[in-house]
Structure formats: C-alpha cells, structure tokens
C-alpha cells in the first residue's frame, strides 16, 4: 500500500505508553526478513542476507541452470528500477527525465505481461506478486482485487502471498472498501497503513460503531490502544510531564474518556469479546489517568484474571505494577514485589524487541517509584540509575554532598534485601564521574580541603572526555573577566584540534589547591598586598561562577537561564565582598580596577542592574529607565566619583567601556 507522506514519517515513540495491546513489529520489516532468509537459502550461504542483490541471485540461478529464476529475477530487477524512478522523484539527486518516466511506464506494462504469463509455473507466487506490484504502480487496483479474489487467495501460504494480500488490502482501501481493508491490515500487523486509514476515525463513537459491527474486529486493539494512549497524552500535558509521543495525537476530552470507560465495562459484561482483558485493562488505565486510583486497582486486579493474548496479559501486569507502586505503603513486602517485577521487566525487555517494556519501566520509574522512595535517598538514587530515569543526572548534581557521599558508600556495601540485591547488581557504576561530582560539590561550597581529598582520585584524562574540554584548554581562571572576555575563536579550536591538545592536569584540583593556598595565606598579608590578594581571589571567584568564563569548574554545562542553585555558595556575592575590600587600597591603579570590577554587569541579577528597559510603543524602541537605588548603579557611581577625582589617571578599559559611557551621560 502506498502511504501518504505523514505515515511514512511515523517516528519512534518518546512518550512511554503503558497501554500496549500488540507487539510493534511492522509488517514490512517482518516480510523483508523472510524474503531475505529465502534468498539466503536459495544462494546456499550461511551469512545472513540483508540486501537483495539481483546479480548475485542471477549468477546463482545460472549456475543451477534455473532459467525460470533467471528470467524472474531479471524482471524483478527491472521492476525495482521502475520503483527507483518513483523514489528518485522524492529522495534522490537524479530526478527522472520525461524519457525515464515514459520508459518506466512501458517497462511496467511489459513486466506485467511477462509476470501474468508465468503465474502457472513453479514460481507462480513470485510471478503473481510481481504482476500485482505492477498493477499497483500503474493504478490498476480493481484488477488486483479481482486477481486476488479469483486466483492468488487460493495459493499456498508463503511470504509472497502475504505481500499480495497486503497489496490487495491497499487496493480495497483505494477503491473505497475500507472496512475489509482495515481488518486485513490489522491481521497483518500493518500499523502504518491502519493509521493512514483510521486517522480521522479514532473517536469513541467510531470505536463503538466498529465494535457493534464486529465485537472481535482485529482493528479494535489498534483503535482502543490509540484512544487510550491519546488520553495519556492529554493527561501528561495537564500534569506537566512533557513526554511528547505520537505524531498523530488526537486530543480527547474527559467526557469522551468517561464514555469510553463505561463502554469498556459494557463490552466485558456483554461477553461477546474474545479479549475481555483488553477492555478491562483499558478501563483500569483510564480510571487511573482520570484520578480514580482505587477503582483502577480493583479493575486491573479483575483484568488480570480475564482472557486475552499474551501481550495483553503482560500489559495488564505492567499496569498492575504502576498502579500498585503509586498506592502501596512503604514496606518490605512491596520491596520484594518490586524486585521481582523489575527482574521480570528486565527479562521481557531483552526478550521483546519492540521497546515496550523499556518504555514502561521508564514511566514507572518517573511517575511511581520516585515518589514511593522519596524518603529513602539511597534506594531512590539507585532506582533512578537502574531504571534510566531522565532526572538521575540532575538529581545527583544538585543534591547535598553529604547525601551523595552516603550513597557512594551504599553502592560499595553488600546488599541486604532482595531489592538491594537487584539494584546493586544493575547499577551503572562510574566511580570516576561520581568522585569528580563529589569533589565538584565541595568546590561549589568553597570547601577546598575536602574538594582536594576527592579530586585527587580523578585523573586528568577524565577531563579529556568531558564535553567542556575545549573550554578547559582555552580559558584561564586568572584573567580578569571585567577587562577581558575569553571568547573562543574558531581558529583556537582549530589549533587545539590540529595539535591534539590534551588536558594534562586535573584542572579542578589545581583550582582548589590555588584557592586553598591563596585563602590560607591571607592572614599573613596586610595593606596593599592584602588588597591585591582580595582582588586576585575575586577574579578567581568571578571566573568560577556560572556567569564566568570558567563555569566548567562548578558546572557541566552552561545556559542563559542558569541561576544560583541550592547547595552552592553565591560566588558573585563573594566576588563583590572581596572587591569591596580590594577597593579600600591606597594603590590607585588597583582601586580603579576594583571599582571597575564592582560595576561589572555579570555580577548582578537583572533587577540589580543600573537601568531597566521599558518598551515604547511610539518610538518602537526600548527606553532605559535609571534605577538609582540598584546595586550596580551604586557601584558605577563609586567608580564615576573616583574618576572625577582622578581625571588624569582614567584607564582606557574604563574610558572605553560602553556601559560606563552610557552611565556617565546621566550621572552628574
């Protein structure tokens, strides 16, 4: 079946749906695999066959003196070239010429005639498929319907017959026989075609009508799954969980979902369905999604006793785990149950390749287990690690250092309970990263001695693998950011790459040691030297801050929306405090630098800046409104007053500063 463009871009799911009624093994992939296996057998090779190569098969057929196969494959090859012409219109650089399109049409006619003439040979299924393929390309759908119904449907069961049936279903669809087509697509597991066909028919009403016509229609699992997953999308959006999933989401309102819940109950009661577990599980999950947790627990328990396919039973088990984890009190019994279910999920994850169990685990982790173990930090972190929780990285990055140290110790002690055993056996341990993180957390707290104790165990090579490696190589913490910004130039990056620069010493350890030394020896300094030390330290703090150029000392990444976080010292406040001290110096050059540094914009939040910006609807410009009580204003005022008194000594970095020039325009 030729699918519209939309269906062709049906991507991988990112929303982990819990309601899954069938294995997502696409028809196309399945038949392709069988065809390739058939070619492998014909060629007599032990290597797995991935890609049909006509020339190889022709050679093998000639070797076997199999003339019929030679002519079939030659025609198949010609047919595939006709398909290529169609493909090249969309995706290839060589867009077909008029002549090529005319040749394609002529070839299709000729292959069609050849194939029909060979449908009584020993390769009749293959030739019949070729005949139907040509008809499909030529738009002769009615002929395909007739041929299948009168002839091909009687053929023996082969993959070629499956493919012919798929073409037949497509022809039915294209000639308006939707219902029949849908049943066939569902039977074959051709979900892309089903989505194309039912895209606009996915409401409760449509599902009910479909059920009423045939309570065991094979399309129903597809439609019901789609409906329930759409409800999940709606609820996710309400709850702020941004798991965007399907490409073809249909927004379902609560009234429609309620109708569906009631209808599911009716279907189970009527007893006409062969898969009551599907309807009852759907009801349970919808009850849960719409806030009826107790009813959901009752329904899923009942569902698990009903009939259905293996997949439906597995899905009910997954739903049971989710619903139970959300409601069960913290207990050893629950821990044991969870350990068993996590092991089962892992086993199923390896057994089933469609990703359902992996996605289910992700969702259970985020929405049920995190809350369940919120008061048991060690288990919580381990759980996040083994269930690939998206928040794991951020969680350990922002938690208190003491807790992380405790967790680190937990991971290295023998397990006591079943759940501990499961968790510890499945942790994705990275001791270097953990040690770096604990050391970094101490840097954030300015506890240099403790930072050094941890960072000493992290080799320099660790930082060569870090995403921020280039910044480590190209930036220095001793550069005054208010005078020189260390923008990275393309040429520098090129140079670093060309000469394969590497980080040769642990940069965080070096920083911690320098800070320890500079702060540790402050008490022996006084006067100008002390002020100079304060200024130097301020430079280091400003660089290590999240707005500094050496942000990588404290963070793994940088964003415009970064702010001061919990469990870290306000380095900007420290910078300003030290600059204030430095500005008390009698050394005029240092005093000027310190005052200038104090007016540096990156040391202030938006509401502490010396002006605010207000939009002017008349001029289409922002008007600057001076905030004379702001911290930065006071800093600029101090600098301006200093410069007024020392007019002959104004340094260029001050006199050429745009921001300062702007400030002076309104400061008298």
């Amino acid at each position, binding site marked *: 079946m030729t699918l519209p*463009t939309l269906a062709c871009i049906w991507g991988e799911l990112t929303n982990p749906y819990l309601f899954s009624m069938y294995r997502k093994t696409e028809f196309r992939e399945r038949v392709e695999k069988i065809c390739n296996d058939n070619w492998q057998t014909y060629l007599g090779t032990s290597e797995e066959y991935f890609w049909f190569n006509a020339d190889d098969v022709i050679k093998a057929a000639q070797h076997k003196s199999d003339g019929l196969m030679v002519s079939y494959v030659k025609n198949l090859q010609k047919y595939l070239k006709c398909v290529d012409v169609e493909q090249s219109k969309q*995706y290839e*650089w*060589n867009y*077909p010429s008029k002549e090529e399109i005319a040749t394609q049409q002529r070839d299709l006619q000729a292959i069609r005639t050849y194939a029909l003439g060979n449908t009584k040979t020993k390769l009749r299924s293959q030739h019949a498929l070729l005949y139907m393929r040509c008809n499909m390309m030529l738009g002769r759908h009615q002929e395909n319907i007739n041929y299948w119904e009168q002839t091909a449907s009687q053929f023996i069961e082969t993959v070629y017959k499956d493919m012919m049936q798929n073409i037949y279903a497509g022809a039915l669809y294209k000639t308006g026989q939707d219902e029949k087509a849908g049943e066939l697509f569902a039977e074959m597991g051709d979900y892309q075609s089903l989505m194309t066909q039912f895209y606009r028919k996915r409401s409760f009403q449509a599902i009910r009508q479909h059920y009423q016509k045939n309570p065991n229609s094979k399309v129903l699992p597809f439609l019901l799954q789609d409906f329930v997953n759409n409800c999940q999308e709606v609820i996710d*959006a309400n709850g702020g969980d941004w798991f965007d999933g399907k490409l073809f989401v249909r*927004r379902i309102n609560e009234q429609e979902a309620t109708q569906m819940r009631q209808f599911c109950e009716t279907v189970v009661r009527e007893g006409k369905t062969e898969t009551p577990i599907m309807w009852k599980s759907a009801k349970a999950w919808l009850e849960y999604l719409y806030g009826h947790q107790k009813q959901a627990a009752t329904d899923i328990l009942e569902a698990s006793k009903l009939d259905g396919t293996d997949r439906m039973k597995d899905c009910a088990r997954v739903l049971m785990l989710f619903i139970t984890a959300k409601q069960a009190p913290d207990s050893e019994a629950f821990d044991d149950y969870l350990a068993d279910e996590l092991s089962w999920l892992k086993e199923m994850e390896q057994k089933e390749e469609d990703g359902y169990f992996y996605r289910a685990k992700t969702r259970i982790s985020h929405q049920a287990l995190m809350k369940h173990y919120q008061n048991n930090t060690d288990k919580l972190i381990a759980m996040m690690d083994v269930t690939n929780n998206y928040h794991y990285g951020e969680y350990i990055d922002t938690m208190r250092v003491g807790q992380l140290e405790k967790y680190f110790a937990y991971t290295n002690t023998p397990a006591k309970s079943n759940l501990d055993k499961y968790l510890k056996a499945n942790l994705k341990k990275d001791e270097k990263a953990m040690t770096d993180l604990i050391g970094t957390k101490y840097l954030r707290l300015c506890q240099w001695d403790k930072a050094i104790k941890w960072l000493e165990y992290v080799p320099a090579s660790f930082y060569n693998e870090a995403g921020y490696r280039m910044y480590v190589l190209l930036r220095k913490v001793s550069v005054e950011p208010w005078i020189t910004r260390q923008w990275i130039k393309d040429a520098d990056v090129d140079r670093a790459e060309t000469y394969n620069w590497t980080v040769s010493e642990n940069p965080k350890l070096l920083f911690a040691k320098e800070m320890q030394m500079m702060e540790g020896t402050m008490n022996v300094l006084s006067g100008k030297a002390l002020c100079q030390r304060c200024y130097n330290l301020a430079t280091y703090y400003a660089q290590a801050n999240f707005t500094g150029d050496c942000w990588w000392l404290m963070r793994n990444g940088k964003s415009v929306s970064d702010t001061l976080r919990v469990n870290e010292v306000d380095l900007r406040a420290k910078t300003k405090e030290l600059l204030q001290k430095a500005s008390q110096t009698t050394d005029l050059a240092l005093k000027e630098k310190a005052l200038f540094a104090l007016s540096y914009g990156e040391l202030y939040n938006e509401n502490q800046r010396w002006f605010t910006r207000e939009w002017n609807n008349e001029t*289409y410009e922002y008007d600057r409104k001076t905030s004379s009580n702001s911290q930065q204003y006071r800093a600029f005022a101090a600098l301006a007053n200093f410069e007024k008194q020392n007019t002959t000594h104004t340094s260029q970095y001050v006199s050429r500063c745009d921001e300062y020039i702007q400030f002076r325009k309104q400061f008298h």
Partner: protein
Amino acid sequence: MSLLLCLLMTGCSERQELTEGNAVYFWRTDLKLDSIEQSFLQRYHINKVYCRYFDVVIDEEGTDPKPNATIAFSSTLPDSIELIPTVYITENCMHQKHPGLAEKIVKRIRQMNETNDIKHVNEIQIDCDYTSKSRKNYYQFLEEVKEAWGQTLSTTIRLHQLSMEPPPVDYGVLMIYNTGDPRKWEERNPILDIRDVQPYLKQLDSYSLPLAAAYPVYQWVRTIRNIRIEHTVEAKEILRVKEAVEKKRSNLKNVIITYHLDKDNINRYKPETYEEIYHH
C-alpha cells in the same frame, strides 16, 4: 540576468535595489492552486512565486545531504507569473563542506523544470537558517551555486543574520517572522512582535545587500497543556512592523512577499490588509 536591479543612492553607501513587485511563497508539497488562490495571485498583482522545490537534509547515516519532500506538480502557474525554485537546506548540512552539493542542487532543479515543463526560470533561491558556526561553509556553497546556476541567485536572511557580513548573492529576502521564543508564547507572539524585531532595526540601513521583505500571514497551531493554542499575527501588528522596517530602510517596500500562499491564509485577513501589506 532577468532580475531588474536599479541603482539607488541609499544612506551614505551606493547599493543596488530591487524594482517593485509583489510575491508569495508556496510551501506545500503539491503545486495545485484552487480558485481562491488563483484569484489572489491576480488580485494582488503577484508577479513572482517562490516555490519550495525540495528540502536538503542530512541522511540517516548523518553524513551526506540528500533531497527530501520534493514537490509534485499537479498544475502550473499562469504564464504571467515567474516561478522561483526555492530549496530549503537544514543548517546542519552546512556544518561541514560537501563538495559537489551546489552542482547537484542546480542539476536537480533544472531536471525538475524540464520533466515538468516549467519554462523561463531565471532565478533560484536558497533558504537556510545559517549561524556563525555554518556561515563560512554556507557562503562558499552559495558561491558554488552561483557558479553552477549562472543566473540570479537569492537567499533568505533571518533577522539574527543581519549582524553578519552579507552572503554572496544577488539579493536577500528578509524573513520578518518567527521572531519570538516559542516557549514564551504567553508574553509575545512567537511569529511576530515588534518588540522582537526592534533590536535588529538599527542594522537594516547599513546592510549592504539589496533586500526584499517577507511577512507572515500563516497560523501556527499547537497544543500546550491540553489547550489548543493558535498563533496568528494580528493585521495591525504586521502593518506596524512593516511601517517600522520601512522607516529604517525605505526600499524594503519595493518587493513584498507573503508567507505563504494558502486558501486559509488568504481568508484569514481582510482584502484591505493584503492591500496594505502589498502597498509600495
């Protein structure tokens, strides 16, 4: 070269400018116009249609650029209208050099014209959201396209690109839309808001490339937290922006393009609004 450029003195620099004309972008996957769209072309004296021919994206292996979503030609444009094949290239295609890409694109456009009986094509346009990371490769690529095509070449210019040196093309189309942060939709219309355009206005006059101006008439529908959000730019906002940009660079009124030709977009605004947008 068919593009009519005339010499005008603007500001303190000598810059070629474009002669007056009205145009639209056509951004669908099948060139098929209904009666409303056809009469729109006539009513607003549209003399150029910038028609998206195909996209160029990086292939599944993440290495080579390849065409995608190629247009089909179910019908043709009236003879009086010039068709300008437009190719959208994703920015990541320009993260590295792809020798021969320019020739491939030009050859494909030519073949599409020939196969589909599209005649008298004198100009092509390349659309790419290039950044400082991709600019160098993109400009070199444009030089190669120019060389391979041999006739008029234009490119789109996004507002943030005004701060870079101009690309080596005959003229640019200034895309005056998608100006806001889609995440801050409650504060600003992400399609167009004068406050987001304002910071770029000062660069307009000194930008040394001849420019046409493209304004948004489309709607962007998305669902945010279970609420259907329709972003549509109010007519008065489009006109306010048009006034502001033309105040900074008067010849931006010479060639006006709307993005994009579609029945719903035509019906979205009153005819008076379109008349004002297309007012020179």
